[in-house]
């Protein structure tokens, strides 16, 4: 019973929050709603016993991602109302609703299968993080490392793209200017 109440409550909250996120005119509202939605999602994770995931969700999303977005918002000066040209909202909502209805129509049916076995079963009595750690560093070691590389890529990319070097484009300069710039870079 508790589970049901919690589910519906958080479901309602998440849906509302996310709905606000995608509809509000205020960027700040959107950001706040998104952050709230993320937190409510982490609640689901806790309900579902994925404690580690819940923590990560709060830290990464509500902490890091939101901070990044907040920074971005300040940078882009979008704290004021965002004026967006509306183009056929009916179509947008229609399509999304249709997609949702279609998928829901399928998803209301229970999955019938005798063949589902847990390949990495949850072991009772062991902490979630511990189990995750074990799987992560055995089975998913390689993806984990690749994810590390991915984050490195993202970091390098972020630095390169937002960095100062991109301010002056060698592509658009004629050759002489480009050489000078390169010279300067070399000296610095």
């Amino acid at each position, binding site marked *: 019973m508790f589970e049901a109440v919690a589910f519906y409550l958080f479901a309602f909250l998440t849906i509302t929050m996310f709905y606000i996120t995608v509809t509000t005119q205020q960027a700040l509202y959107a950001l706040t709603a998104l952050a709230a939605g993320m937190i409510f999602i982490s609640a689901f994770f806790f309900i579902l016993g994925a404690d580690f995931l819940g923590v990560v969700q709060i830290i990464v999303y509500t902490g890091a991602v939101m901070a990044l977005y907040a920074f971005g918002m300040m940078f882009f000066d979008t704290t004021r109302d965002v004026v967006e040209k509306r*183009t056929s909202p009916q*179509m*947008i909502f229609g*399509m*999304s609703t*249709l*997609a949702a209805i*279609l*998928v829901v*129509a*399928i998803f209301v049916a229970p999955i019938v299968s005798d063949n589902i076995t847990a390949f990495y079963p949850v072991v009772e009595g062991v902490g979630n993080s511990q189990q995750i750690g074990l799987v992560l560093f055995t089975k998913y070691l390689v993806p984990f490392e690749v994810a590390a590389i991915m984050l490195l890529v993202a970091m390098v990319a972020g630095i390169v793209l937002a960095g100062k070097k991109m301010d002056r484009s060698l592509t658009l300069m004629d050759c002489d200017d480009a050489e000078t710039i390169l010279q300067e870079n070399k000296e610095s």
Partner: protein
Amino acid sequence: MEMYLYIALFAPIVGSLFAALFGAQPKTPIVGYVTSALIFTSLVASTVLLGAVMDGEIVHVELMTWIAAGDFYVPFGFQVDQVTVIMMMVVTLVSTIVHVYSIGYMDHDKGYNRFFSYLSAFVFSMMVLVMSDNLLGLFIGWEGVGVCSWLLIGFWYHKESATWAANEAFIMNRIADLAMLIGIFLTYWSMGSVQYDVIFAEAQYIDHSTLVTIGIFLFIGAMGKSAQFPLHTWLADAMEGPTPVSALIHAATMVTAGVYLVIRCAPMYDLMPEVGYFIASLGAFVAMFAATMALVNRDLKRIIAYSTLSQLGYMFVAAGLGAYWVALFHLMAHAFFKALLFLGAGNVMHAMDSELDPVKMGGLFKVMKVTAILMIIASVALAGIWPLAGFFSKDKILEVAFSGEHYILWGTLWVTAGLTAFYSFRLIMLTFFGEERYKNFGFHPHEAYKYMLYAMSPLAVLAVIAGWFEHQFVDFVTQMLPTFEFHTHHVEMILILVTSAIALGGIITAIVMYRNGPLSTKWESQFAYKVLINQYYIPQIYEKFLVQPYRELSDIFWKQIDMKIVDASVDAIATTFYNTGEATRGMQSGNLSTMLKWMVAGLVILLTLAVAFSVGYIAIIG
């Protein structure tokens, strides 16, 4: 003897090629002499061959393979037998005379060399036609004479009418040639060969209906060459060519090729009398039909051309009724007097600056005595007055018709004989006698060169005496051709008298009617006159219902169907693709929002189909 055969055959082409060497140059007198000499050589060789054949030797040679594919095999084979040698004699003799005559006639023409080249080429083609030992070889000559005729009719190619007539002649002949080809095809596929000896031997064993079909198709071929109705219009128009050409090609030789074909295929036509009767009927009809057109015409050469047409009709009557030797006999006699008549007309034209309307002449007898006499001889011969050549041959044809109890044919021919005499002497009277009307038009006629007249004289002699050798002729050719049983001995004299009477009657009527020059123009408004002068409106009908529709249809085919339907539909496919591209490139608006919407739309479409499918699937599987 083979050598003589080759000489007879190839001498003309050598002459032609020799002349062609000088083709583009102005007059080179030697060309005329050389070609004439070579044709004469051919004549001599033919005479030698005649002697050989008279001795009973049939010369047959095979020069080389021509076409061999699958089972089809045709060589260049030549054969000189009784019929051939008669034809060769006629052809080479008339050609020689015409060549010599042309040296004078074409004297001032800048196409002198070209003319002789064409003329000799024609003789060669004609020789191939008559000498070939198979149908396809005959077809070579057949087409060859067609081309030479085209070249010669259109000799004065700056004249629109001449080129038009040339093309008309060629195309009309082609129509008939198609039928002839079909006949040849059928011959091959039913008898396995196109060699005369094979097919004549085989003919009696094959299906009769097939044989009849072959006969009809070959005869249609003959109709074209011999200008039988309804393919006759080209002959009158062909008079646009130089007169020697008319004499040689359109009177003496080429046009008789059709008759020759029927005579040559006598063994086949003998097996199908129904076709023969059709040939005879058509011949009789054309004889009458052409003669009526000749009655009123006001063009010297056209009158003679219609007369030729009419006489060809006679020949076909004979050939169709199985009297092949009679047909051949008339062919020969006709060649002599008709060539003579044409050459005479040529002299008149020469004298009158190419004027052809006899109404504008009159009284020329005074200035052109020899020509006039020659032409009168020819006309008398044509009219069939004893003892000239025409009498013997024509009379025999009437006899043949009567003997076969084809009284309608006989009657037609009998009337035609009168008409023939009438228009011949109408021509003579208008041209040579009566008032000297030419003075009103400022002409200064003069007699032709002497040697032209000398050249014509052998023809005159032959026109007179040819008929006297009837018996020898019969004996000679019936060695090969079937003899004809006459059943008319009891009425023979009566027939002769009746025929001669109407001929004489025609002559006298003409003389009386035209003794004072042309008739008054009053009757020109009469219906009969209009029909006749307009050649029964047949050229107009052809123009209106064949030529024009063809032209218009061609235009429609090109502009409406080819361009607007066939081509446009191809282009339409291309433009459809292109336009689809133009119309839908807006999908790529460059706006990110739109792009994302497209992605979601794609997803939704896929989902819809997926769900629809799974619902359907579950409904079916349960």
